């Protein structure tokens, strides 16, 4: 059986409504957070879990990490049912909730780590080895004696990640780990996750809204919408389905004389730059290129697929999310 096995997972929440005028009791609204979700993940896989806000991503993560009990469905992680054998289960997992804190606010992060060492029963030498390894990879060496409150958001995120990995979990849940990080930190974090996955064969389940994260880290993605699984497979395949447009940017040495272009291509000129949009299927460079050259001397020509965020937005739209 696969390492993570999820079948027919359902979870609903009851939301209490505001009391209506004249009524004595408050009504309830039933929100189906997860509806018949099934998937399998093998050990060592790096899976992206995406979907619009409120799709049920965090709910899934909470169930998989054993802090939420589902209404229906079977879940096993490494042969254990998370919410039934909580203690045994959590011993092997690490979690990063991007917007919550686990480290102590007023004490140096090394002291918070010491506490985690005791919580996870990490032997002394294993702890020191692991901390050195993580501190180097996450560039935390100089920050260990700094109280958490003095760290920047990016530094704090790195420290939180370090805290979640100290006990060398075999399974790591990352719930929006790159929120608010600058480009350098984001890249470093991605490198680190790939390294952790490669070196320690850590299974990683990543939820995020940052599609660049997904593209850089995960070959496999699952798309969740309104509590249902809508796609599960290769990211490239998913993208190619929605990657229907190409954008051509042509920069001339002076204002171009706009040529007559074939119908499927739409053009916008802006000073020396010409921007063309066209369906991928209609893109015919053989006819297009001579026409563009007639218009003037080309300095630069860029052919781009659509921005990945646009693709995902198009996908969500098509799926009616």
């Amino acid at each position, binding site marked *: 059986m696969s390492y993570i096995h999820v079948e027919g997972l359902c979870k609903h929440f009851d939301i209490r409504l505001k009391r209506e005028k004249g009524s004595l009791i408050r009504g309830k609204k039933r929100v189906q957070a997860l509806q018949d979700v099934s998937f399998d993940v093998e050990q060592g896989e790096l899976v992206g879990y995406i979907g619009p806000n409120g799709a049920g991503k965090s709910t899934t993560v909470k169930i998989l990490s054993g802090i939420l*009990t589902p209404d229906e469905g079977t879940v096993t992680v490494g042969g254990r049912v998370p919410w039934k054998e909580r203690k045994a289960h959590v011993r092997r997992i690490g979690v990063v909730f991007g917007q919550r804190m686990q480290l102590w606010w007023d004490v140096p992060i090394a002291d918070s780590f010491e*506490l985690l060492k005791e919580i996870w029963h990490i032997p002394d030498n294993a702890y020191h080895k692991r901390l050195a390894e993580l501190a180097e990879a996450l560039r935390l060496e100089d920050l260990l004696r700094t109280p958490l409150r003095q760290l920047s958001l990016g530094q704090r995120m790195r420290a939180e990640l370090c805290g979640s990995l100290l006990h060398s979990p075999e399974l790591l849940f990352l719930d929006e780990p790159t929120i608010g990080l600058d480009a350098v930190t984001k890249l470093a974090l991605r490198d680190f996750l790939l390294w952790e996955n490669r070196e320690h064969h850590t299974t990683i389940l990543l939820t995020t809204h940052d599609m660049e994260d997904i593209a850089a880290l995960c070959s496999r993605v699952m798309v969740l919408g309104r509590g249902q699984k809508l796609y599960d497979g290769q990211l490239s395949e998913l993208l190619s389905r929605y990657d229907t447009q190409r954008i051509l940017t042509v920069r001339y040495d002076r204002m171009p004389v706009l040529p007559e272009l074939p119908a499927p291509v739409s053009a916008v000129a802006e000073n020396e730059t010409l921007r063309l949009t066209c369906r991928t299927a209609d893109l015919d460079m053989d006819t297009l290129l001579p026409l563009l050259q007639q218009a003037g001397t080309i300095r630069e020509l860029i052919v781009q697929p659509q921005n990945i965020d646009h693709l995902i937005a198009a996908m969500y739209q098509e799926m009616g999310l």
Partner: protein
Amino acid sequence: MNAYYAVFRLRRRLETQYRGAVIGGLICQVFFGLILIALYRALYAGKPQMLPFSHVATYVWLQQAFFRMLLASDAELMDKVRTGGIAYDLCRPMNLYGFYYARILAQKLTGCLLRAAPMLLFAALLPEGWGISLPVSLPALLWALAAWVLGLFCVSALENITMAFTMRTLDPRGMQAMMNLLMMILAGNVLPLTLFPDSWQPVLTALPHAQLLDAPIRIYTGEYALSQAGLILLRQAGWTAALICTGMLFWRRNQRRLVIQGG
């Protein structure tokens, strides 16, 4: 060293960091101590009570010195429960009740020890009729110390129940306001329990709040005879055990029906 001791140590250290709070607390408690004693002196001047006045003064000072034990909650812990940071603690192989108990105990112990020493010194230097008196005997002091330790365990258990309730109501303020009010009155912080009418005493002293500071203080002043002390400690231990069991039960039930809201 295990996780529970580790969190105890870390919380203890954190408590010593807020020096400003310690000094502020000291000044406030000294002020309240003096006001209360002036008040009771006026009361005695109008109508002398059965209880010797030195007992009342001692009661007031001990209450003020160990005030942090009664009325102080761990704001960070409350926040964790309120905002869902507790999700992290749930993802750890440990007993949540024990973990929070150790944390609460550390805060209460450190908080009152830091303040008690200078407070008691101050109270000892005050003139006769204003300051604190020595314990009635050395054995009484030892019994009182033991009773105080039990009181500390008891108040931590009480606090942990408040925490469990916070998880349900999601806002600690209402519950805390009520608990604090009960605490101020029933633990003898506003009016020494010894000054309540005699007919009330059996009820008041049987309540859990009387086990916290009232019991050790009465042993200290000699109001409870040494022969009674064993029984008093037994009652304290009984309440502590009952409150710990109740708290554990609440936490177990909470954990089963817990929903960490939001992504």
